[in-house]
Structures are given as C-alpha cells and as structure tokens.
C-alpha cells in the first residue's frame, strides 16, 4: 500500500509494522521448527524479535488510542487549546515515526522524501509549541510542595533554592569537620 505522510497514515504504518513483525515471528518459529527445533527452542531463538513485535503492537495501540481519544475531546474545547492539543498529538506520532524509521522502511513503502518531510514536520512542530512550553507544564498543575524541586518551583528561583538546599547539608553545620583533625592534618604532616 502507498505511504501517506499524515497522522492516520503513520498510525496505519505502525499497524503494518506490528502486523509484519508478528507475521515474521510466526514464520521464523515455523522455519526453525522445520529444521528440527522444538517449539520452545524455536520460540526462544525468536524471542528478541517477539519482544520487538510486542513493543510495535503496543506503539500502534498507543498512537491509535491517543489520536482517537483526542479527536473525541478536541471539539469540546476552545480553538486555542484545540490547536495545541492537536499539535501535541502530531508531535507524538511524528516523533515515534522518526524513532522507528528502520521498521517503517522495512514494512511500509515510506520513501526518503517522506522521511525528509517528516523531519521538517517535526522541527516545525517544536517551533510551534515552543511559545506554549511553560504553559503546557503549568497545566499539569503540580504544586511546589508536591514537585519538591529546587529547579522546578513555580517562581523559578532556581539558583536561590539550590543554594538553600546546599546549606541544609549536615556538613555545613560546622566550619571544620572533625575528620580534618583526625585524618587529614596528621596525614598532611606525615604523622598518619
């Protein structure tokens, strides 16, 4: 089937990858059995491919469900939010297509030109989402007490919080640690 450089086309591509990988596993198990291996040994010899097929199946489910479930909700939200939610779906699907190019090249009719377009599409999506990057994580609405991070606090006082955290180290409770008198000083003076 011809490759379609659309979200639906990519999802279908992932389903082809999963189906193709499962089919190959079945065929390889059978081939190995035909050489005299037991089913269990044939399974074991094919298990790297089987795990990969299983992951491909899961990716196909993840992409399909994310896409279809988002389609159900986008008509209930404002146009501005709708646009961002759809950009995120696009980003996720295109990202995984680029991550799994080898599989797509093997099991679908994707071409080099299609891949170039996918890469540009991905970079374009990053640029489009960039202005909303902080808004998107603010929407996870995780309070500082829950986030518990010097780097991620809502007010962005990163360096002040890092220093506050450093000062809480028990080693900073005294100016000179006892190990200096016990070990370092005698060692430095050649007495240890």
């Amino acid at each position, binding site marked *: 089937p011809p490759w379609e450089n659309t979200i639906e086309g990519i999802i279908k591509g992932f389903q082809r990858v999963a*189906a193709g990988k499962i089919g190959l596993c079945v065929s390889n198990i059978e081939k190995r059995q035909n050489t005299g291996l037991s089913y269990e040994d044939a399974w074991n010899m094919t298990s790297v491919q089987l795990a990969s097929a299983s992951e491909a199946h899961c990716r196909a489910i993840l992409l399909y469900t994310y896409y279809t479930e988002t389609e159900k909700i986008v008509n209930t939200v404002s146009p501005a939010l709708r646009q961002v939610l759809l950009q995120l779906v696009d980003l996720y699907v295109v990202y995984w297509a680029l991550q799994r190019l080898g599989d797509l090249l093997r099991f679908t009719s994707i071409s080099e030109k299609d891949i170039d377009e996918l890469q540009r599409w991905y970079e374009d999506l990053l640029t489009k989402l960039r202005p909303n990057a902080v808004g998107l994580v603010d929407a996870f609405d995780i309070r500082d007490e829950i986030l518990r991070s010097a780097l991620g606090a809502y007010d962005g006082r990163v360096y002040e919080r890092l220093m506050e955290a450093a000062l809480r180290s028990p080693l900073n409770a005294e100016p000179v640690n006892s190990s200096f008198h016990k070990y370092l000083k005698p060692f430095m003076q050649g007495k240890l």
Partner: protein
Amino acid sequence: VNPDLQRERDKCTFNVTELINLIDGGVQKTEERKKQEDMVLSEGIHIEDVPSEYLSHKEKYELAVKKACLLFKVIRKMQEEDNAGMENYRAVLGGKLGSAILQDGSPLTLHYVMFIPTLMGQASVEQQVHWIGRAFDLNIIGTYAQTELGHGTFIRGLETTATYDPSTKEFVLHSPTLTAYKWWPGGLAHTANYCIVMAQLYTKGQCHGIHPFIVQLRDEETHMPLKGIKIGEIGVKLGMNGTNNGFLGFDHVRIPREHMLMKNSKVLEDGTYVNSPSSKLAYGTMMFVRVVLVTDMCNYMAKAVTIAMRYSAVRRQSQPKPNEPEPQILDYLTQQHKLLIGVASVHAFRLNADWLWNMYNNVTAELDAGDLERLPELHALSCCLKAVSTADAAECVERCRLACGGHGYMLASNLPSTYGLTTAACTYEGENTVLLLQTARYLVKAWQQAAGGNALTPTVSYIATVNSGRRL
C-alpha cells in the same frame, strides 16, 4: 517570579486553567483535587526538620512509617467528611500527593494497592466481610507476597507450598528451600502483620497450582513474628528505600482452612478441591496493578518534565551570536526535542491509561458475570502497556535529568528520586521483557487465528486488515 518564566507565561496562547480542568476531568474534579491537596498539605506532614536524604536507612524507614500513619489519619478525616470510598485512597496514596510526602516510597502502599484489592477480587463474600473492614480501618496491615528469591514472573515455578491437612482442617505453609523465600514485597519486612501469600496448593497428595492464602505474620499486640515465620528486610536499593521491602520464609506454619481466599477455587473440609472457572483469575491483582501503574507513570513524567521545562526557561547558556545575551536553553531546538516529547507523552499515556482503566472495569464486570472471553486480551494489553509505559517514563525522566545538566544530578532537583521510582516499575509486577513476551504469545495466537480466517478481538483486529510489505 523569575522574569524569564513570567515572560513565558505571558506569551502562552491558550488558557492554562482550561487545560488543567480538561486533564482533571472537569472543573469540579479540579476543585476536588485542590481541596484534597489543601487538606493533606495543611497538615504539614511533608515538612521535614532534617532533609530525609541525609537520614540513615533505618531513620528513613521510621520517618516513612510516621508519615504514612499521619497521612492515613488525614484520609480517615476525608472519608468521614465526604465518604468517597476508595477514591481518596487512590488519589492521596497512589497519586502525586503520596509520592510528595513519602518521596522514597511508603511502607503502606501495598496495603492499599495490593492487599485490599486482592481481598476484594479473590476473597469469598464471607471472607470479605471478615477482613476488608479491618483492613480499611488499618486495624491490620497487609501486604502481598508472590515473588520468591528464586522465581519472579514465572509464577508456576513458585516453590512455597500450602498442604491441606484434613485432620485439623488447616493448611501447612512451608518454604522447602532458600529460593522459596518470598522476596521483595513492600511493607513485608517490619510493617505488615498480615500477608496474602501465593503458594502451591496440595490436597489429597495432588498439586493444584498457585493459590492465594491470608497468613498472619506478627502478633497483633506485640508485633513479634509468629512461630515458624522467618521475616526481615532485604536491604538498600537504587530507590524506594521507604517501602520496607522484605523477605519471608515459612517453617511448617499452620493456618485455618478459611484462610485460603476462596472466591474462585475452593478446598472443602474433607480436602476435595473445587476448581475455578479459569486459572487466569488468580492473576487479577497483578493485572489491576499493571493498569494502575500506567497512570502512575504519567504522574512521574509530568513531574519530571515540569521541573526540566521551568529550569530550561530560567537557565541561560552559551553565546551563539556575538554581542547578544546568553539565550534561554529552552530556545535550543535540541532542548525542545528533549522536553516537548515528554509533555506529549504525558497526554498520550493519560488517555491510554483512562482507556485501559475503562476496559479493565468492563472486563472485570464481564468476569463477575462468568464471561471470560476478553480476559486474555486485557492480560496481553496490560502486560505490554505496563512494559512500554514504565520504560518510556524512565527514559523520559532520565532525559529530563540530562536536560538540566549537572543541576539535574542534585537530589534537590527531585529528578534522581523520581528516576528511582520509575525505573523500579520497569522490574516490579513483571520485568518488562518478560511481559512483552507474554503479550507476544497472545499476538502469535491472534496471527494464527487471522490466518485461519477467524474473527479477532478489537485491539488486534488490525492484524487481519492491514497489508504489510515494502513496495518494490
């Protein structure tokens, strides 16, 4: 607020509150969540005199127990106020709130996430009446012991035996070897006084495979281990050092016949074994946990990406154009590449988790009505989604840590402990490769069914419809 961060917020093109409400499931749900957070955080349980990172292993456990008890007190108050059933337990203990207060895990998690759900799913009505009330009120503390030192996901290989003695109407639990010792369960070491134990059932000289039993481990007053119970903690781990993981061995420990959970299979007084409609029904708890795990992974990813994104808006680095200030690192495309996929992943997994949760509820309702048809499909799906979501979450958290450079390596960033929690999930409830291979068994069968012209279940129906193969 840092001016760079404020500028980012000013230029946002959508209404953040609208997205918050959408993620929560509606305005009312957001209000409920915030009320819950206010209620829990106003107790100040999360505030520590000494940062817990600097405590010894023993002190960390003691603090975790103290916090877990105080947290339970808050939940009890919530229950009295709005009587929200299991929802408060899941929201407070299983969600972001729980991991905020008990950063390195809670010794009571398995009580709520495995002990009570197993009682609900595997105990007969009479047994539920006897145990569940006490468990909810924390009059008893339970955990769930399945994995052994010598065997993990391959549960048919478990060695612990439960041999029925009709003369006393008791089961005798025994660990015949060192490798038969139960190993890993959270809360088992020094917290729980009861435990659901998966053991090979023997009656009338015949083995009937693994079955769940409820076993008392410690005296309810003194907390001393009971006779024949060999119990302790397994030691320090990469993360989750507050969860009190333990080991457990049995030396011919006798328990009453009624302590076998008998919703599905039964042993009658004379030792007659009554089979369950499906051997897979005993795996219900694992399936439940795998489904819940997908939601947990969303929470960890959301945390990590929030930290790294805000940091990337504040942090400035390098000078690509002469005579211009150092740009925010978020302006580098490579940084956007690292982080924005994390945001998208949270949304993708959240919607998939909701979808899987609905499916789980539908299938368990069908099971209660005696319909087992979709059980293998749910099992296959929960296995692979658990594997992929935990692997992706661990990778996402690690990517976020790297996106924060050296500062992400500081425990104060909360990224290392978040990584500890996510990567732990790659191995518990079934190591990921093993789970992928379990799904593969289902997929191979589905392929063979499709080849035979048979109808396929919805989630694998694409196998019969898509054609694969590269165009020449």
